């Protein structure tokens, strides 16, 4: 029998659900998106005993089935829709032994949907230290389920869990709470109308509108008649339901769970005292941030340089080894140069995701949120905006999505609008190469000018984000209730496996996604640069020869290539926009880079690489890398293209301009309107143009 079982992993945030997922599926997993929304969909395959296989879905963390965010809504949409291809044969609820009481709330709700449900009690390795003992048999009987006591840290209990999943058919589907006890008459009426439906399911559909709305309910139209109660009444009933659930859980745990506080040693209190201290707390946070930037710039430089050189020599090798012709040129000048421009991303991105995932896994991120809330509130943001603003330094796309757990709509909207100002890693290659070209050598207080400039750009990005938030807070007239609830999880040493998975997964996705666009653009660019209309392009050789009758061979080749490029299709486009960008200190080649950058910033370096490869005929050893090609670039009057003035102007332009179609698309989805992404595009790009203009005119 090779039937595949659908398993859904469900649990509160911070219960180690993802560790269980990783332990079950190993590397057999992939991250996709739920159709129509941008919530990450993590799924994998797990081999079970007796030749069975399970398709495991790691659902977003949720505190209950009363969804208050898009992520949580995914869980309930799936559990209410029996026809979904992912509808679980068995639900595995993951709980943390230290927070069992609270975690069981969700368990009772899932149970009441009468889906076969297993309970995983995770982090069992902490039981002894916390003085916790469990009566598993008693809990199994009372909760009508089977329990796997698991420690993903010590790799214990996973086999038991697999065994239990295999035998899911034996699970009891008896509910935990009779929902009709919270309002007998109301539910009796409901029962009369929908005799064949589960009452709790109906109740979820009714209340979901209060919490979140937007649920598919084709066969539930008649439910509108049951909206007789006001929202306040429904909310009161939900409170009552919650209280009843806790009564049930407390009763079960009274006998099933014993905590001996004498054994408990609490690291949390000691760490919290320091990490949320009004001086030490901030100091530690800034030291961590500083380390993060040091890693991204300094430590990542070595592997980045290696990759850059490797691709340059690969391109050369292809050019010299393969038969000369259009295809070889396309490969070496278009494709390899373009891909190389993306690969240099891997080290800095991996470092950023490494830091962010360490901060989240350890539980430290919540302390930062706690520390920063008051300050952020003054700027119209929430403490939770810190997470998007920090992840924005990796990539604005997950960062904008991370804004989802901000409860207040206005704070969330402002966070989404200002996050693209933070220095995402797509800006990094542009920064790195321009800084290397135009910023002089030298050190100040032990840091090189170059590293200082980079840090300065990060600070400028962050400050611009904060200041625009302040302005938006004053300008936007949106009324929304402010509330803020954040769990402070216990501190944990991050699990190596989880961190590695996150880093690999995010970096891979990023490079593949960006890579696709860059590859496509590289090819288009190469075609546009290698072809052109009219005499000037096609007879370049004879034109140059008549103009410069006594010229050496290599110089001649260079001149012809440059002339051709100038009159190619791309040259024509570039020179058309040159008047607009000349005041900023750019030539038409940079102009092409700016144009393609509107697809994605990181395309800039690849674009220049393609244009300069096509534009230089010499295979000079010194001119292998993009950097040296750029350094050698001169205007028609012989002055260098990349000077301090034009460099700073470019840096500022990239710091502020909204040049990422993917971010705009995400913002559109997250705000459900074109208004906000268009506002971002126009305001950010005009601001970028003006600051770059001022900088160049001032410095030149």
């Amino acid at each position, binding site marked *: 029998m090779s039937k595949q079982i659908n398993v859904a992993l469900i649990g509160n945030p911070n219960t180690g659900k993802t560790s269980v997922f990783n332990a079950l599926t190993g590397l057999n997993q992939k991250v996709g998106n739920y159709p129509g929304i941008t919530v990450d969909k993590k799924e994998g395959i797990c081999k079970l005993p007796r030749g069975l296989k399970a398709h495991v879905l790691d659902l977003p963390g949720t505190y209950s089935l009363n969804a*208050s965010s898009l992520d949580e809504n995914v869980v309930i949409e799936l559990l209410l829709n029996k026809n979904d291809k992912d509808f679980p044969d068995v639900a595995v609820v993951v709980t943390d032994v230290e927070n069992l009481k609270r975690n069981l709330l969700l368990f009772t709700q899932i149970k009441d949907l009468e889906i076969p449900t297993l309970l995983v009690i995770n982090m069992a390795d902490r039981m002894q230290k916390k003085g916790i003992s469990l009566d598993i048999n008693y809990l199994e009987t009372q909760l009508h389920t089977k329990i796997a006591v698991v420690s993903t840290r010590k790799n214990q209990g996973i086999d038991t869990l697999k065994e239990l999943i295999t035998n899911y058919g034996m699970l009891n589907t008896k509910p935990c709470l009779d929902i009709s006890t919270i309002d007998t008459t109301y539910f009796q009426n409901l029962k009369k109308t929908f005799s064949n439906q589960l009452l709790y399911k109906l109740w979820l559909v009714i209340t979901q509108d209060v919490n979140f709305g937007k649920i598919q309910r084709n066969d539930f139209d008649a439910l509108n008649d049951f909206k007789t109660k006001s929202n306040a009444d429904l909310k009161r009933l939900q409170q009552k339901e919650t*209280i009843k659930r806790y009564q049930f859980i407390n009763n079960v745990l009274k006998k099933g769970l014993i905590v001996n506080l004498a054994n408990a040693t609490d690291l949390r209190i000691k760490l919290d005292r320091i990490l949320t201290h009004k001086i030490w707390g901030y100091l530690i946070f800034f030291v961590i941030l500083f380390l993060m930037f040091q890693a991204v710039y300094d430590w990542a430089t070595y592997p980045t340089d290696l990759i850059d050189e490797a691709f340059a020599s690969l391109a050369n090798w292809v050019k010299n080894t393969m038969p000369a012709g259009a295809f070889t040129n396309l490969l070496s000048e278009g494709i390899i140069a373009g891909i190389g421009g993306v690969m240099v991303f891997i080290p800095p991105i991996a470092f950023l995701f490494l830091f962010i995932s360490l901060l989240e896994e350890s539980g430290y991120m919540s302390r930062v949120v706690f520390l920063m*809330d*008051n300050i952020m509130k003054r700027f119209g943001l929430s403490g939770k905006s810190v997470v998007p603003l920090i992840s924005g330094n990796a990539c604005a796309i997950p960062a904008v999505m991370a804004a989802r757990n901000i409860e207040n709509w206005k704070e969330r909207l402002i966070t989404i609008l200002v996050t693209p100002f933070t220095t995402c890693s797509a800006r990094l290659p542009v920064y790195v190469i321009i800084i290397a070209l135009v910023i002089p050598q030298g050190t100040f207080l032990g840091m090189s000018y170059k590293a200082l400039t980079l840090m300065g750009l990060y600070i400028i990005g962050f400050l611009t984000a904060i200041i625009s938030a302040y302005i938006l807070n004053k300008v936007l007239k949106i009324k929304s209730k402010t509330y*803020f*609830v954040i769990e402070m999880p*216990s501190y944990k040493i991050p699990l190596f496996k989880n961190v590695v998975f996150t880093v690999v997964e995010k970096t891979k996705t990023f490079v593949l996604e960006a890579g696709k666009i860059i590859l496509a653009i590289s090819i288009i660019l190469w075609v546009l640069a290698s072809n052109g209309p009219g005499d000037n392009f096609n007879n370049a050789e004879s034109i140059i020869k008549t103009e410069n009758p006594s010229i050496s061979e290599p110089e001649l080749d260079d001149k012809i290539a440059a002339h051709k490029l100038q009159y190619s299709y791309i040259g024509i486009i570039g020179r058309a926009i040159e008047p607009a960008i000349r005041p900023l200190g750019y030539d038409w080649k940079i102009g092409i880079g700016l144009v393609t950058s509107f697809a994605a910033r990181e395309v800039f370096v690849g674009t220049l690489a393609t244009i300069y490869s096509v534009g230089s005929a010499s295979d000079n050893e010194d001119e292998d890398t993009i950097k040296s090609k750029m350094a050698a670039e001169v205007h028609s009057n012989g002055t260098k293209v990349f000077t301090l003035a034009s460099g700073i102007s470019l840096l500022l332009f990239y710091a502020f301009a909204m040049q990422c179609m993917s971010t705009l698309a995400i913002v559109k989805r997250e705000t459900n309107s074109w208004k906000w992404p268009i506002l971002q595009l126009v305001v950010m790009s005009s601001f970028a143009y003006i600051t770059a203009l001022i900088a160049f005119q001032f410095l030149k």
Partner: protein
Amino acid sequence: MQYTLAHLKKGETAVITDVSSTEIPLKLLEMGCLPGNTVQLLQVAPFTDPIYLNINGSHVAIRKETAQLILIEKSTL
């Protein structure tokens, strides 16, 4: 005088008596903020807001404006 969670000082413990305001997010109740449960103020963020609580074993941080809606009875011990 009727005390609310916002009156609690660092280290103090109290019992929650009423959470009936509909302004209180359901999520907070689901995390255990219910009548009869004990609550302890663990930490106060710089500038006195938000506050960091241990409610019946759940560790959560909330803003003062939400804390003002939750009625408590201070333990006299």
